[in-house]
């Protein structure tokens, strides 16, 4: 599988327009993320991909060919639903063995996957006794059991502790390395930002933006934050020079001058600093947080 495209998908639930002509594309060797607030249409779009919701218009293309969600497509699919709750009366191993039996996967693979998600020690324990994070890790185990060419994850970070997140990151890395397709929906953009290749931001059923994380940053044009650690007796001098320069917003606190500056003016600011030899001990340049980018995109979409 080289690419999965959902093209011009529209879905209505009665009078509610859940998705309006949304198109997204996921490539092999990449992780594509659907982001958006609750009710933005992320899960609906995933359900269209899984054949659980039939769209009013639009459809699915795999490797450029129009496809239905049929058995052949499903053979290549691994899915982690949001907040999945497996049978509490069965052990983690029994749950996984059911899916293994259903998908013709051997018991060795079951043990290996349990090991991979860090549940070997609790394999024979009933799911009733699992923490929320352990249940989510069991869900990840089910999703990756068949080593699917297309991995679909709905809110995969929900309830995961650091160990669980590490497992998830390693799965994403492996799928990327093995040239498989990963599509995941989450509202937690900041947490997964560095692990995804493209982001589709949805709001109220509409596609607000679709780009790489850095592309999204560029598109909103939020300023960078430069923090100067200044020698105490020269802080007034540094602040005055930057204020006089007039192309940045300044905030000063005990030995620190913080400046918000556009990407274009960053070099000019560095020149300014070079003209103040010995005044600045160190400096730190920070890109805007993904949460700020996300908020800006949603505001732009609403406008």
């Amino acid at each position, binding site marked *: 599988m080289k690419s999965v495209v959902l093209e011009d998908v529209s879905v209505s*639930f009665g009078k509610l327009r859940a998705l309006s002509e949304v198109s997204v594309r996921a490539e092999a060797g990449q992780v594509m993320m659907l982001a958006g607030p609750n009710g933005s249409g992320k899960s609906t779009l995933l*359900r269209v991909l*899984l*054949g*659980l*919701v*039939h769209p009013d218009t639009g459809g699915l293309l795999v490797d450029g060919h129009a496809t239905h969600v049929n*058995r*052949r497509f*499903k*053979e290549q*699919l691994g*899915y982690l*639903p*949001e*907040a*999945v*709750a*497996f*049978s509490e*009366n*069965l052990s983690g191993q*029994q749950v996984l063995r*059911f*899916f293994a*039996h*259903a*998908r*013709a996967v051997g018991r060795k693979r079951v043990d290996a996957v349990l090991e991979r998600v860090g549940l070997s020690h609790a394999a024979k324990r009933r799911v009733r006794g699992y923490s929320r994070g352990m249940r989510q890790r069991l869900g990840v185990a*089910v999703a990756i059991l068949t080593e699917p060419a297309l991995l*679909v994850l709905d809110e995969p970070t929900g309830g995961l502790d650091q160990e669980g997140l590490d497992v998830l990151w390693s799965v994403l890395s492996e799928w990327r390395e093995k040239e498989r397709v990963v599509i995941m929906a989450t509202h937690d953009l900041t947490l997964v930002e560095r692990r995804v290749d493209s982001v589709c931001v949805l709001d109220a059923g509409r596609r607000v933006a679709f780009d790489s994380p850095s592309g999204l940053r560029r598109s909103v044009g939020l300023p960078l934050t430069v923090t100067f650690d200044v020698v105490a007796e020269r802080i007034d001098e540094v602040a005055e020079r930057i204020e006089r320069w007039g192309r940045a917003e300044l905030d000063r606190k005990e030995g620190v001058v913080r400046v918000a500056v556009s990407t274009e003016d960053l070099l000019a600011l560095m020149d300014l600093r070079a003209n103040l030899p010995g005044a600045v001990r160190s400096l730190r340049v920070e890109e805007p947080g993904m949460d700020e980018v996300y908020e800006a995109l949603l505001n732009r979409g609403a406008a």
Partner: protein
Amino acid sequence: MSRVGRALIWHELLERTRDRWVLVVSVLFAAMASAVSAYGSSAGHGQEAAGATLTGPSLVTLASLFVPLVALVLSHDAIVGERERNTLGLLLSMPISRGEVVFAKFIGRGAALALSVALGMGTAIAIADGAQRHVLISLLLPTLLLGLAFLAIGLLISTLAPRQSVAASLVVVVWFGLVFFYDLGLLGLLVATDGGVSESVIAQLVVANPAGLYRVAMMQALLGGQALSDLGLAVDLPSVAQRGFIWSGWVLGPVLLSALILAKKRVLR
């Protein structure tokens, strides 16, 4: 059936046998059936036929109460439970059709029901002796049929209900309605219409209910038609073909309807 469907049947069987409610009701049924069987043996004072006429009808009455309950407990969460746990989408993301999911669940839970009936009736059979044992063995299949009819009804409720709590309430209503109040309702209808509805129509309505058909058919088989008339139960049992049609309708109808409803749903949550 596909590989996923076959796996689902086993999974359902395994899961249901670990459900504490199913276990509780099954054990209770087994205990009461054993008590009835033991009482029949002792009351017969060694006369096997007399014991059988006591045990058989008592066990039919007991089974007509308990087996529908076990079946409804078994099936009420089959679909809506998966939906609430977010596992229905996961199931359907595998190479299996929606209809197949319904049938696999029915077969798997039907097998669990068979185990429950075998446990209940089996303990009664083990305690019984001679002719009494043969009578009880002859009850096994019709009792299972009764259970399957209610299992199918529970499955349909599970497909239609928006939440598991609603499904649980509905199966309680269905159990009381079909097992307890149906015959009373018909009697009320007869009295209220003052003969406007003929007895034959009422008799047909009695056997249209799976619990009614089971009771009448089993009582007639155990005690004979005359004994039923003496008890004031003037119900003509439909022909074997008609009975087969009624049972097929109750067992297959709700299952097919569930599969159709699930298959036609545009949106699955």
